[in-house]
């Protein structure tokens, strides 16, 4: 299917950890790196996260931003061999379980919980319930679309909600809302990354390198404590519908890997395997690894050290530090 080619399409959707892609595209960083490798990269913004993944899975895009869990359950389970090129950040408070007028996680028992079903919120809820010795049977999940979470929380019949930023900070600003469990309690388990089609990447390693180059260039600008850095953060804030302060609040809840070395270290640590095992077990329980999946092992997950979690003959999700290492080594 894939061959050497020069035109690549990248999809991203609006989320704090992915806003740099829009900024990079607007400010010419993408073009700079694409030119360097003699390719063109078309960066497309999606308003709807699910649609961006679907488009990638259906082959309309070469790379997309998504979370580790969705990477496994959507493209990988959809038969598209996918490689995580860049581990951009992990959620460190961006996702939260919020109760209304109650203050402890244990109070969630028996309540309806509004969340985007089968999303990382659902995973976070499962981990939260697990931590309190409960299971999903103790609550009643109601699917609710993410843009409407803030409005929904203010309605009388909503008492518990799991969602992510920017909705979390909007909701927590309401007097009745309490954060009872958030992703700081499960650090490193909700990972935001840029993935690409493995075949495309294999035939066009320059594409991966360009992506890494773009990302770390942009990181350098946006994390700088300079007027330019503030301007970049302001721009990203506005593009995501808020302002500088709002955006920085979201950034604070995000463990951004602005140095490639940190990302390499995170990717290579054995914790990743543990995390992915939890994730795939969760997905299997929910029947999201394919309707006929006999066990959580049905899809193979390759780790940077070459070890495979699950079916080695059906590896569909690969973690690699190749491109991030190259960035760290300055060999892009």
């Amino acid at each position, binding site marked *: *299917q894939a061959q050497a080619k020069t035109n690549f399409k990248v999809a991203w959707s609006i989320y704090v950890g992915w806003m740099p892609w829009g900024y990079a595209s607007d400010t010419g960083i993408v073009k700079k790196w694409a030119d360097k490798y003699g390719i063109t990269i078309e960066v497309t913004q999606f308003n709807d996260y*699910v649609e961006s993944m679907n488009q990638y899975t*259906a*082959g309309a895009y070469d790379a997309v931003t998504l979370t580790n869990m969705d990477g496994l359950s959507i493209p990988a389970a959809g038969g598209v061999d996918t490689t995580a090129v860049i581990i951009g950040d992990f959620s460190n408070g961006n996702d939260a379980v919020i109760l209304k007028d109650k203050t402890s996680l244990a109070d969630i028992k028996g309540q309806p919980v509004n969340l985007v079903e*089968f999303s990382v919120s659902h995973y976070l809820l499962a981990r939260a319930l697990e931590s309190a010795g409960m299971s999903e049977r103790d609550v009643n999940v109601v699917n*609710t*679309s993410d843009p409407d979470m803030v*409005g929904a929380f203010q309605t009388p019949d909503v008492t518990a909600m799991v969602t992510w930023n920017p909705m979390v900070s909007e909701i927590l600003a309401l007097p009745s809302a309490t954060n009872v469990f958030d992703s700081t309690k499960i650090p490193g388990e909700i990972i935001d990354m840029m993935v690409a089609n493995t075949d495309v990447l294999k035939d066009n390693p320059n594409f991966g390198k360009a992506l890494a180059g773009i990302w770390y260039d942009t990181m350098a600008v946006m994390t700088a404590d300079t007027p330019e850095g503030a301007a970049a953060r302001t721009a990203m804030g506005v593009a995501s519908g808020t302002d500088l302060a709002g955006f920085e609040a979201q950034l604070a809840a995000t463990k951004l890997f602005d140095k490639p070395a940190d990302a390499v270290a995170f990717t290579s640590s054995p914790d990743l395997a543990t995390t992915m095992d939890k994730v795939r077990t969760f997905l299997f329980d929910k029947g999201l690894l394919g*309707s006929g999946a006999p066990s959580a092992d049905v899809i193979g997950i390759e780790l940077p050290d070459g070890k495979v979690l699950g079916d080695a003959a059906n590896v569909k999700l690969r973690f690699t530090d190749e491109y991030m290492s190259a960035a760290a080594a300055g060999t892009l």
Partner: protein
Amino acid sequence: MRWINTKPSRATQIALMLAPFLLLIVAYGVTSAARLADNPADKLLPALQTLIDAINRMAFQPDPRTGEYLLWSDTGASLVRLFSALGISTLIALFFGMVIGMLPYVRALLAPFVATISMVPPLALLPILFIVLGLGETSKITLIVIGVAPAMIRDLALKVLELPREQIIKAETLGGSSWQIALRVVLPQVLPRLITCLRLQLGPAWLFLIAAEAISSDSGLGYRIFLVRRYLSMDIIFPYVLWITLLAVITNFALDRLRIAVFPWSNLEAR
């Protein structure tokens, strides 16, 4: 012979009628096969067998989690919402359509307002709706009503106004009061039109139903479509879309039969 005068025979007509549907199925089959040859796990255009498996799973096997037959429970939930909303819209349209159409004061008061309201995009007002009405069935039904009722009111008020003035005068010379004329002259004549008008709103009603279910729900046809859309499970989406289409076609047809059965004179008029 001119093209406009050539008429197909009965058999040709049936063949022609079926042709585009068959063509669509064949085109689907071919494209699907081609994509699957490329990537056997492709989900966009599942093979026929996959579709049948999915239908079988959704319609005839209980869901392991809840023990329900999903297609039927989804259909039930959606239809309850749809028909409640359409019922409410119909009553609202009937009341406001009649008073706007009959009473000049009310017409001056409400006609421009309803015309403006009918132009407001209801989806944009969803957050307010939720907060005022909560996330339950009420807000879903209300969304459909808001989306559908203003157009019905306008349509019906227009129908009332279109009643020949002669009829109203005649009714007055028969001693009818405003109320009696409303009850015995206007109402029965707009009822069949109300049904026609309801049929026209079936499409929008389904649209708003799906939109409402996409936003917050735990069952319903639209809920299921948007839930599995997350996994690009076209094997479920396609049958669901076909099923919705079928339900809409049947409702449409049944409403028309109902009109003819209940108001036989309304069909005599047509010509």
